[in-house]
Structure formats: C-alpha cells, structure tokens
C-alpha cells in the first residue's frame, strides 16, 4: 500500500480527498479470513472460515451471539470485534430491560455506525479494525443482514461476504441471489457453504474444524452449527454438484440431522 505524508493520522485528508487511515483499516478487514452472510424471507445464515495459527492451535472463533435474535460474523481484528460485540450486547440488554422488546437490527446497526464514525474524526483515535456481518430477526419486519465496516458504513444486504478472497464468494452469491428469498434454511446453508468454499486456497478443504455456521430466523433463536453437526452439510457439499444458476429449487438431500 502507500507510504505518503497524508496517512499518519485520521484527521488528515489527502489531496485526493481520501482518509488513508480508514483505507488501511479496511485493509485489516480484507486480510481476515472470509465470512459469508445470506438471507431468505424467513432466515439469515452466517458462515465463516476459521483460521488457526498452527497445528497445535485452536481455530479462531468468528461467529458470536449478540442476543437470542441476533448474531454476528467478523473479519479482522478479533480484539476490536470483542469490544463491538460487548457494546452490541449491552444495547440489546438495555432494549429488553427498558422496553421489554428485542433490539431491532437496523437500530443497533445505526448505533454501531455512529460509534465507528467517532473514531474516524477525532484526533488520536483509530478506526475499528474489524468488519461485521450482522444477522438479526425482528418479529415485525423479518430477517435482516447488515455489513458494518471501519469506515462507519452500515448497509443492508441480501447476501454479502467479507475477508480474504471474498470476491469469489460474492461472485457465487450474485449468481444465485434471486433464488434466496423462498429458499428453505438447509438449502440456504448449502448455498452459503458453496460460497464459502470459493474463498479457500487451492489445496484447502472445508472441514468440521475450520468452518462455522450461525442461523437465526422465524421460530429459531440464534444458534451455531459447529463441529460434528457440520458433517451432514459438508457431506452434502462433497456429494452435490455445483448448482445450476436457474429459478428451480435446489435438489433436496435426505433429511438433515440437525438438533
């Protein structure tokens, strides 16, 4: 990247009208391992590729529960992600305590945006180095998927991916996005796994250790599918051919062993 005289602090514009510190922060997100999110009319699914620093190390957790109706997938600085998820959890708790209602996803994401913006304008601070995919389900307005980035942009998506090689996942998602609305949860998860697989390096595979899925939706609180419970999905991923880009439903496998 660049090394110039305008990139030392957040409160300096470059002559091209850019804030380099923010772009460097976005770079931190791009260096993190991939996270994918997609939604139907009833559910939101978040998937993540978990990196491990070595043979003996565990795989870094990338999916966090914020509340019963909301979860996030992260890419970037995990420590910054912890700070932001703590903030999100506190806000959700406040909403339930003060108003006896779950925090609407859109509102929480606005609060994150406002919080992130402070760090892009005050001297001496640095932007958060983490990108969030926020999946939530509101009783009144249904499922929502948001992307929150260090530049304080928070946008809503039908499908999105962030992190390393995320463009490959986006290409897959764009191809099938028009089908997602009416898709059932399991088929949605399969789409997500196909997208996540696109982000892998040549010689790597998805396995029950490096992969993680989070689901929230109508009648389903946020829950994780990890470890052995991934087997059924990963087996189907192996077995199934790449789906055709069409308006037909995905071929259904046998009933999933999901608890």
């Amino acid at each position, binding site marked *: 990247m660049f090394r110039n005289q305008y990139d030392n602090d957040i409160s300096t514009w470059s002559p091209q009208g850019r804030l380099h510190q923010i772009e460097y922060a976005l770079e931190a997100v791009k260096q993190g391992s991939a996270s994918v999110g997609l939604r139907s009319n009833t559910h939101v699914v978040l998937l993540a590729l978990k990196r491990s620093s070595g043979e003996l190390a565990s795989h870094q957790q990338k999916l966090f529960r914020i509340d019963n109706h909301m979860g996030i997938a992260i890419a970037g600085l995990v420590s910054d992600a912890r700070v932001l998820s703590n903030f999100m959890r506190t806000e959700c708790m406040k909403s339930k305590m*003060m108003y006896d209602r779950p925090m609407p996803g859109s509102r929480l994401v606005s609060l994150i945006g406002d919080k992130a913006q402070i760090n892009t304008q005050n001297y001496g601070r640095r932007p958060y180095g983490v990108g969030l995919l926020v999946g939530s389900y509101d009783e009144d307005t249904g499922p929502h998927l948001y992307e929150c980035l260090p530049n304080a942009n928070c946008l809503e998506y039908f499908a999105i991916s962030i992190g390393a090689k995320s463009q490959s996942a986006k290409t897959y998602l764009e191809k099938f996005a028009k089908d997602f609305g009416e898709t059932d949860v399991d088929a949605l998860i399969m789409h997500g796994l196909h997208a996540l697989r696109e982000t892998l390096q040549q010689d790597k595979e998805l396995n029950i250790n490096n992969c993680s899925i989070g689901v929230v939706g109508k009648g389903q609180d946020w829950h994780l599918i990890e470890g052995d419970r991934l087997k059924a999905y990963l087996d189907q991923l192996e077995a199934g051919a790449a789906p055709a880009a069409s308006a037909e439903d995905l071929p259904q496998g046998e009933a999933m062993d999901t608890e």
Partner: protein
Amino acid sequence: MDHFPTNWGNPRSEDVDSYNTYPVASHSGTVPHSVRQIAGFGHAAGHPTSHTQQPVVTGTSVLGIKYNGGVMMAADNLASYGSLARFRDVERLHQVADFTVLGASGDMSDYQYVKHLLDSQMIKEYNADDGHTLATPNIYEYLWRVMYNRRSKMNPLWNTFVLGGVHKGEGFLGAIDLKGTPYQSPSIATGFGSHLAQPILRKEIENRGGEENITEEDAAQILKKCMKVLFYRDARSMNKFQLARISAEGVKISEPMSVETEWAFAEKIRGYGA
C-alpha cells in the same frame, strides 16, 4: 434540612452546611473530577440528602377495565389542592401512542413531567423511522423502570399510573405506583377507587364469566356505576369525568360527562337540604 433537634438553636458550626451553600470537604477527601461527573455530584454534602416530598396538586382515582375488543378507562376532571377543588377541567387520561392511554392519579406536576418523558420517547421512536413503534407493553416497561428508579433514589414521582392499550389483538391493562410496583389485571382502580370501585369491577367481571363477555356498552355502564359511587363517597372527586376507549380501531377519549345522582334525601336531614 437538619433533622436532629439537638442541633436546632445551636450556634452554627462550620462543619454543618444544612443548605449546601458551599462545597464542604467530604469524608473521602478530594473526589477526582471524572468521578464527580459520573456520580452526578452537583455539590458535596456533609450528610445524606433526601428528597421524598408530599404531593401538592392531586388527582383522585383512575379506573380501568378490559372488555371484549379492548380496554376502557375512566378518570374525573378534578385536580385538588388539598381540600380545595382547584382545577376543574384537567384531563387525567392522555393518549400516548396510537393504541395506548395513560391515566394519572396523584401529583399532577409529576404527571406533567411523565407526559413530557413519554412524549420524548415517542418522538425518538418516530425519528428512528424504521417501521418499529413503541407498543403498550414497551411503554409500560419503560414507565415502571422510571418509577422504580426514582423510588430507589428516595425521590418518587408521586403517582399511581394506569396504562391501557391494545397490542397484537389483545387488551393490555396495568398500573404502576409511586414505589415502582407494576401490576396487571383485567380491572384496575387507583386511590379511593382501589377500595370502593375495585370490588365492583371484579364482581362484574366474575358475574359475566370473564372480560371476553363484557361488551363496550357494558364496560361504559360498569365504569359509570363506579364513578357514581366514587362521587358519592370520595370527598376529593367531582361529577365530571371522561371515558377512554382503546380498541383495534384506536383511541377515543370522550367529552366530559356526568352521572345522575340522588340528593333528595338531604331534605329529610336536619342541617342539610333547603
């Protein structure tokens, strides 16, 4: 105020600052600036401060009853200044949201403050403009948290509020008192009403086998009967009141009305009548 009689009439001593006229060194020594801000110290006091007040301008009972299709509430238009019937056109039933009505008994200035608080909440919600609005149970939760918080600071809002509304096709009716105690029931009555009207309300509901069997007209009749009893027996009431009806169609607060009362018996009593 100095609560200890032994200090009254004594020469004023330097370490007793009864009226907080200047910062007095506290026991803990100097308090860092940031801590002072967070703790909300406006001044240091050498002794605990308390604020528990007494209500000044007050409203009497508020009644509420659930019926088939919604909730109905009643409150008279009187705000008393002790025994003086001071303000005779006060609306103690206030629409908060599309399907929520707040009824207030107790201190009327605290009621005005709470109206302002709730209006602020509704405006904030409106400005969020994201398809979510505060419904009756949300407002109820918020209000009881406020009341309990004030009670815990020994500075209560001296009211008993009744919150009635409709949410997801169901009626909602609850009360919150000055101690922050929330209480939901098919029938609610505050103040004198809790003694005189509540038994009538409960009996009516029982006789009909539940609030689903009470029609809107029934509910109005039951409340008017209770308001009549209250006018006869509550010495701080007035025969001019409003009914509020909340149903799936929304909120309707009636014009002031009154009930027929019998006073002819007074003629027979020495000292009363013409």
